[in-house]
C-alpha cells in the first residue's frame, strides 16, 4: 500500500513540474503603482447591479490610468468572509480596500480600528474612523424623478415598489419614489413589498406577479438581483399582451433586460463614486470622511437615453430635477 502512495506522490510531482511552464503568470500586483482591492458582499461580483457597478468603476480606472494602478476583488459567500477578505488586502499592504455595501459597515469599522495605517472605503454606509472614506447616495432624489415618470405614465393609477431588505438605504428609495409619484398624481395607489433579500430572483418574480395581478402597471424595484425576477415576470406579462413596465435600479438596466419592458432606470453611480475616490487616492488626495452624492453631483439620476418616455414627461422630470438641485423641493429621505 505504501508503494501505491509513493507512486502517486511521484506522479503528482512529476506532472506538476512538467506543467509549471503552462500556467498563467501571477495576476496580482507586483509593486508598480497603487494597489486597490475591493470586497463584494454576498451578492457576488456578477449581480447585474451594485457590486458589478463597483467593479466596473475600478476596471475603468485601471483602463484610464494603466500601469499606475492595480486592482483585484474578493467575493464573499458568507457574512463571516467579510473580515478575512478585507484583511487579505490589508495584510498584503494594499493602498486602498473597498467594502461594498451597507451590510459590511460594522466589519469595515472593526478592521479600520485594528489597522489604523491602512486605508479603507465603503459604499452606502457611514463608518466614522479617521482612515475610512464613506460614500453614500441621496437615492431619494433620484427615486423622486422616476416616481414622477411613473406617476405621469401610469394608466391604471396603481404603481408598485419592490424593495430588497428593509434597511435605511432602501427606505430612501421608497420614500423618494412615493414623494415623486404623489407630486404629480396625488391619488395614485402605491403597493409596497419588501422581499427581504437582494439575491432571490424567485421572490422578486412572486412579488411582481402579485402586484401585476392587482392591476399595477409600473413597478420600481430596488432589490439587487432579486429584481431580475421582477423583469422576468414583466417580460412574461408583456408577451401575454399586458402593457406593464419595470423601472430598473443602480445601472441602466434597459441594457440588460431590453427596452420592451424597462421604462427607465434610477441610476446610482457607484462606479463613478469608486472611480473618483480611487483616483483621488492614486493622485495622493485621499480624504477620510463622508461624501454624499445626489442629483447635484450626478451621483443619482436617469440614464441619458429614455426611448420609452415621451418628451413632455421628460421635460417635467427636468423641471423637478432643477427644483431639487436648487433646493426648492426637499425630498424626504424616510
Amino acid at each position: 500500500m505504501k508503494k501505491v502512495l509513493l507512486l502517486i506522490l511521484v506522479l503528482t510531482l512529476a506532472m506538476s513540474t512538467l506543467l509549471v511552464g503552462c500556467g498563467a503568470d501571477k495576476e496580482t500586483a507586483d509593486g508598480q503603482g497603487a494597489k486597490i482591492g475591493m470586497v463584494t458582499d454576498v451578492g457576488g461580483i456578477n449581480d447585474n447591479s451594485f457590486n458589478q457597478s463597483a467593479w466596473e468603476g475600478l476596471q475603468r480606472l485601471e483602463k484610464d490610468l494603466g500601469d499606475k494602478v492595480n486592482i483585484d476583488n474578493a467575493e464573499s459567500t458568507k457574512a463571516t468572509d467579510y473580515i478575512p477578505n478585507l484583511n487579505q488586502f490589508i495584510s498584503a499592504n494594499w493602498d486602498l480596500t473597498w467594502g461594498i455595501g451597507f451590510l459590511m459597515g460594522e466589519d469595515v469599522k472593526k478592521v479600520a480600528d485594528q489597522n489604523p495605517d491602512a486605508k479603507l472605503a465603503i459604499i452606502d454606509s457611514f463608518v466614522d474612523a479617521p482612515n475610512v472614506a464613506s460614500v453614500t447616495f441621496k437615492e431619494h432624489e433620484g427615486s423622486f424623478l422616476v416616481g414622477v415618470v411613473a406617476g405621469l405614465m401610469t394608466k391604471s393609477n396603481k404603481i408598485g415598489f419592490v424593495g430588497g431588505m428593509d434597511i435605511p438605504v432602501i427606505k430612501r428609495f421608497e420614500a423618494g419614489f412615493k414623494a415623486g409619484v404623489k407630486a404629480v398624481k396625488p391619488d395614485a395607489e402605491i403597493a409596497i413589498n419588501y422581499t427581504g433579500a437582494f439575491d432571490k430572483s424567485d421572490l422578486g418574480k412572486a412579488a411582481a406577479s402579485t402586484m401585476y395581478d392587482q392591476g399595477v402597471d409600473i413597478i420600481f424595484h430596488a432589490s439587487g438581483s432579486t429584481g431580475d425576477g421582477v423583469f422576468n415576470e414583466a417580460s412574461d406579462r408583456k408577451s401575454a399582451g399586458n402593457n406593464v413596465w419595470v423601472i430598473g435600479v443602480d445601472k441602466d438596466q434597459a441594457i440588460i433586460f431590453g427596452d420592451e419592458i424597462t421604462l427607465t432606470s434610477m441610476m446610482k453611480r457607484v462606479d463613478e463614486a469608486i472611480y473618483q475616490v480611487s483616483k483621488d487616492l492614486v493622485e495622493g488626495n485621499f480624504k477620510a470622511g463622508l461624501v454624499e452624492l445626489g442629483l447635484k453631483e450626478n451621483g443619482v439620476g436617469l440614464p441619458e437615453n429614455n426611448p420609452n418616455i415621451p418628451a413632455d414627461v421628460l421635460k417635467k422630470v427636468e423641471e423637478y430635477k432643477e427644483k431639487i438641485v436648487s433646493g426648492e423641493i426637499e425630498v424626504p429621505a424616510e
Partner: protein
Amino acid sequence: MNKLVKLFTKESSLIPLMAILLGLLFGALVMIMGGYNPIIAYASLFKKVFGDLYNFGETIRQITPLIFTGLSVAFAFRTGLFNIGAEGQFVMGSLGAVIIGTQLSLPWYIHAPLAILVGALFGGIWGGIAGYLKAKRGVHEVITTIMLNWISLYFSNYIIANYLREPGQQHSEMIKPTASISLLNWLSEAFGYNARLHWGTIIALIAAFIFFIILWKTKQGYELRAVGFNPHASEYAGMNVNRNIINAMFIGGVFAGLGGAVEILGVFNYQTIAAGFPGYGFDGIAVALIGANTPVGVILASILFGSLTYGAPGMKFGAGVPIEVIRVVIASVIFFVAASGIVTYILSLFKRKKKEVL
C-alpha cells in the same frame, strides 16, 4: 507511532486520503486546462491557511461550526437517520443564544454557559420535532428536516426583526459582553492578535469526545447504534425504537444547536436577518460523509473542509484563479470522497497488479 502508521494505512483511512489526492489532482487538471498554474494555486491555498497566525486562527474559526454540524449529521446517521436539518438546528441554536445573550443581565460565569445551553436546547428541540414526527407518524425525516430548515430561518428572522432588532440595522442588538465567549478582546489586548478565536472550538472538541462516549460507552448509545443497524431486530430484542429515534434526532440537534450558539457568542455577537442559510448544516452532511460518521473522522473532515473553503480566496489572490474554477476544485475533492466506490476501484486495480507481480 506504529499505531499512527497503522491508522493511516488502514483501508478506512486510506480511501478518504486517496480521494482527497484524486480530487486535488483533478482540480489541478482543470486549472491547467484553464491556463492557471496549479502549483502556485495550491501553494497560495496552503499559505492562506497556514501562512500566518492571523489566517490560521481564522481557519480554526471556519472549522469550528463544521465540527458541530458534522457531528450532528453523523450522530443521526448512526441511528439510521438522515439529518438534513442541521442547518435549521444551527439557526435555532443561534436564536436561543442571541435571545439569552441580549435579553438577560447575568454574571459571566452564568450568562455565557446559559446562552450556550439554551442554544443547544433550541437545536435539540428542533431536531426532536423531526424525530417525533418520524417515530409517531412515520413522516420521513428528510422531508420534515428540510421543511423545518425553512421554518427556522423565517421564524428567527421574524423574532429578530420584531423583538431583537437594533434600530436601522439588519441584525439583532449586540449580545451583552458577559455572554461573549470570544477570545478576541483578550488576545488583541495581550498580543495585538485579531483573529476571531473563541471557546467554542474547545467545546467542539469536547462535543466530539461526548459523541464517542454516548455512542460507544453507554447503554443508550448501544441501543442507538443497534437501531441504526437494524430497527426490526432491535425491536425484537426489546428496545424502544421510537424513543431511540427521537433521542437520536434530539442529540443530533443539540450538536448543531451548540454550533449555532457558539458562532453567535464567539464570532458575530449578533444574529443577522438572513436571506439564506449560513450553509454550515449542508457542509456538515459532506463532513459527516467524509469522516465516516466517527468523531475523529468528523474533526479531520472539518479541518479539510474548513481549510479548503477558507483557503479558496487565497488561490484567487495569489494565483489569479477565478472563483468558479476554485469551486470546481473543491467540488471535485468532495465528489471523489463521496464516490468512494471509484477510489476503491482504483485502489483495487493497484492491488491486483501487485498480486500479479508476486
